[in-house]
């Protein structure tokens, strides 16, 4: 799944790590190249914006607790001109910043302390989603026993077709288009119910419950439609 370690230096994805804590930077600097990534470094929000503009990284790994700009602001400014995938690194107390950063356009998050394996998985998903030319309306998504045919708008579990209501399908499709990535309650409300429903988070939760009852073997222990508590949902990939 990692890029070929033997790939020529210049073709390896470049990750801009924005982190002001030297210990964390040290670990990332050691871990990422071993998995086929090049690393650029920034220790402040201002420097991050400059580096992002001059070195055009393939992905930005952004700590939310920076000395100058806060991570949410960095995300917002970055999004004014760039589609580069952003993964925010948050501490446990930064629950709110994390959600704000996601709503401001960050692609995913990871909470400190994290295992390298988890971080690498997030990076792979973000890079792959960015590489997909456009949100595809044609393709088929598969994970475990779940198959979603986005072209024909049909859903199967273990080969059996499952009948979904229009809203259930739109909710599922929204997650499929972001498969593997966290999608916030707000983003789902906006996409499925429209801007008028932004403060009705329980809509999403009720329909997610219904979807789980139709698609999951045990709705109280979901395998596909995972809850990111306090943030949103994530459709699990294989």
């Amino acid at each position, binding site marked *: 799944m990692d890029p070929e370690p033997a790939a020529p230096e210049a073709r390896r994805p470049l990750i801009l790590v924005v982190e002001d804590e030297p210990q964390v930077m040290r670990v990332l600097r050691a871990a990422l190249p071993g998995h086929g990534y090049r690393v650029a470094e920034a220790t402040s929000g201002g420097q991050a914006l400059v580096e992002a503009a001059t070195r055009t990284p393939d992905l930005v790994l952004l700590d939310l607790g920076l000395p100058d700009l806060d991570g949410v602001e960095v995300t917002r400014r970055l999004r004014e001109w760039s589609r580069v995938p952003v993964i925010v690194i948050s501490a*446990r107390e930064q629950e709110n910043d994390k959600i704000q950063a996601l709503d401001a356009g960050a692609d995913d998050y990871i909470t400190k302390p994290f295992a390298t394996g988890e971080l690498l998985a997030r990076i792979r998903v973000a890079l792959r989603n960015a590489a997909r030319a456009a949100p595809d309306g044609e393709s088929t998504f598969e994970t475990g026993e779940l198959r979603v045919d986005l072209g024909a708008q049909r859903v199967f579990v273990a080969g059996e077709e499952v009948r979904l209501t*229009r809203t259930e*399908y739109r909710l599922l499709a929204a997650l499929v288009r972001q498969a593997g990535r966290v999608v916030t309650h707000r983003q789902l409300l906006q996409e499925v119910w429209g801007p008028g429903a932004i403060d*009705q*988070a329980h809509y999403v939760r009720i329909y997610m419950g219904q979807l789980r009852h139709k698609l999951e073997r045990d709705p*109280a222990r979901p395998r596909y439609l995972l*809850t990111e508590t306090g943030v949103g949902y994530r459709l699990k990939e294989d």
Partner: protein
Amino acid sequence: MRSEDQDPAPLRRATVRAYAAAIATVVACTLVCRAMVGRFDHASLIMVYLAGVSVVAMRGGRGPSALAAALAVAAFDFFFVPPHLTFAVADTQFLVTFAVMLAVGLIIATLAVRVREQAEAAERIRTEAERERLRHTLLSSVSHDLRTPLAAITGAASALLREGVLAEETRRDLLETISEESQRLNHLVTNLLDMTRMESGPLRLGREWLPVEEVVGSALVRMEPRLPAARVETSLPDDLPLVSVDAVLVEQLLVNLLENAVKYAGPEARVRVRARREPAAVLVEIQDDGPGLPPGDEERVFEKFYRGPSHQRGFGLGLAICRAIVTAHGGRIWAENAAPRGAVIRFTLPVEGAPRAATPGEGTDRDGP
């Protein structure tokens, strides 16, 4: 005890009440003496008054006690010393009686007030000692429980640094130790910070309406590595109402309870998670098949730094955090031993009103694609 800058109005009311009680007590004593007079001598009547003064002294302060003593002498003189119903005294030896009665009354009052003040001081010292004991327990448990994983990590890391002499299997073992112990450390620090946060003031809840199934589900998924699906039985009826809770905190609550079940009932424990609708709440219970709680400890398990009889590792904060979370939501949490074995912890989450639109409409396009 009370500082002078307290709101003066209630303080003044309390003082007025104490003086009124002093007067009422003397009136009551007089009525008792009226009933006794004839059959009992004067000495007995004086005893009744002194008893009344003692009662006032035990409840009120110095002022009301002194008033009671003086009134007692006056009432005794007025009603029971000839000539009756005047303050005149026929026999001058009664003047000595009055003086002694007043003196004894005042002494009793002084002693009683002092005893009460000493009791209050002792209580204050006890509370402070308790706080000091908690602080001490916290410190010793922090230093012990944080040092143990740190020692393991330091040991394993320094062994790895002297590379070359280690077999691959040993290397892996040491690396696993570092990984596991740092996770434990993270867990301990998280619990400690949570507890501190919860004690530093009322918890701010980010309440949202959500199905119980969702939060139970996310807790079970988080616990999956330590508590595989095969060992959990869930029973969540379909008619459970939405609850208005802080999702992050309630997930934490459930994870703590599940962790606790695994910790005390052993790695092979079977756990049952059930929920049901009560008149004004949703009741959730988590039951294990372990040895159960030591009888009599059902309430103590929720205290800070409580650890079970097997001296498990950890601060003993897990259930105290659970109680803080449930209380902040206006619910109740309690523990019992289950039949035939195991412990069961139940908690309630109150259900008040429903979200503005409980069931968002599908519009006209039902049963779409």
